[in-house]
């Protein structure tokens, strides 16, 4: 893959919106993901909201440096979360890689198709996390909790993609 987005970005302002704003959103969502919700149901899961802007960057991001920044943000999540260094770094880069591999299909897909694609890749990512936790002696994860987290993340796709969808729509004008 060449790394060129199927969407042509014309002005530097638009380029900044497509490439930089999702990165800030990832950082912000990593931090806000730690706010105590007080709801017992959601407390079991990690909604991993930051995966939505990663998905959009994989589809519309233009720069070669983007995967490096994404991996660094994953390492940052490892540091603040207390997970082994490289755990989220690997998972988030894997997610980006998987989404970018389907870029041509997903960009042309309808919103529902994109949502389905996101849910599939998100489930794969959490499954990978489950397997990594299973082989490490300092980690443990329950299968249904991991899959529940992927499902919860998929539910959050709609509201977050609304913000990013507006951004892409503006870009296409």
């Amino acid at each position, binding site marked *: *893959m*060449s*790394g060129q987005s199927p969407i042509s970005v014309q002005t530097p302002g638009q380029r900044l919106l497509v490439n930089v704003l999702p990165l800030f959103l990832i950082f912000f969502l990593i*931090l*806000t993901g*730690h*706010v*105590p*919700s*007080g*709801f*017992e149901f959601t*407390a*079991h*899961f*990690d909604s991993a909201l930051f995966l939505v802007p990663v998905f959009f960057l994989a589809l519309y*991001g233009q*720069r*070669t*440096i*983007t*995967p*490096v920044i*994404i*991996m660094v943000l*994953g*390492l940052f999540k490892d*540091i*603040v*979360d*207390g*997970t*082994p*260094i*490289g*755990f989220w*770094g*690997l998972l988030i*880069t*894997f997610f*980006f*890689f998987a989404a*970018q*591999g389907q870029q041509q299909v997903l960009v042309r897909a309808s919103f529902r198709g994109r949502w389905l694609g996101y849910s599939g890749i998100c489930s794969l990512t*959490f499954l990978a*996390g*489950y397997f*990594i*936790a299973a082989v490490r002696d*300092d*980690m*443990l*994860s*329950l299968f249904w*909790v*991991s899959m529940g*987290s992927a499902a919860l993340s998929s539910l959050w796709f709609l509201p977050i993609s609304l913000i990013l969808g507006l951004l892409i729509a503006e870009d296409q004008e």
Partner: protein
Amino acid sequence: MVASFKSKRSELRGISVSGVTIICLVFAAICLIFVSRNDRVIGDLRQLMSDVFTPTYDLISRPGAELRKMRNMATNLVDLQASYQNLEAENERLRAQVGELRRNRVLLDRYRELLALPVEPSLHVISARVIADLQSPFVRTLVANTGRLAGVKEGQAVTGGSGLVGRIVSVGRVSSRLLLLTDFNSHVPVRIAPNNTRAILSGNNADNPVLRFLPKNTNIEEGAEVVTSGDGGQVPIGIPVGVVRVDDDGRPFVDLREDLHNLSYVRIISTRNIEQPPRETNARTLPDLGR
């Protein structure tokens, strides 16, 4: 130099995004394999990050905390009559127990005197607010807004309103990280009433930690009270933890007293430092000195 930089930049452009992603994947995998989770430098970095982001966590957790307070207030208003009656009944029960407790206290002091037992270290409680909830399918930790400045130290026990919730694993200047009892890496020595059976309470990343290293042929009753044993000297003796339950396969687990998903404030229990026993080498030299 400018020309060299430009040529390097064009070389970088030659690498596809997929190529860079694969390099990043390999780098992250190497980190995951070779960097230990308990690495001291990483631990310090983690705590530094917690300190740096404490004001941010504090700020973004406030609306949620206020909403929870309002929700609790609304629930309390609805159940006001029932709550009042429950409190009245509890107050009666507690009043009846006060006299008995006073008598027991006197007896305990007398027994201690007779047996020349050392007095248990006095407990000092530090209150803290939970500002970040790091619970996920992979880890179960919280961040509290109190640190070294308030006297918090690694290993100290943390309780909620009704029982033990975990212990401190790292301390920063103004924040500290606490490992919940449900985390896979949490192991706390406990005693099970009424026979004072010793066991280790181990987290399993689920809601109910399990009891391990129970003596063979031990009969544990369902509903038996579990308290901390104080072994190891870090967690004080006698802090209530929960009650024993048995799953369908007959394995005992503990139903915790504290709801770990709804913690707003916690109490960090600080004990006086317990003196280390003399080293083996010193003990060996004592008879020699006597000769």
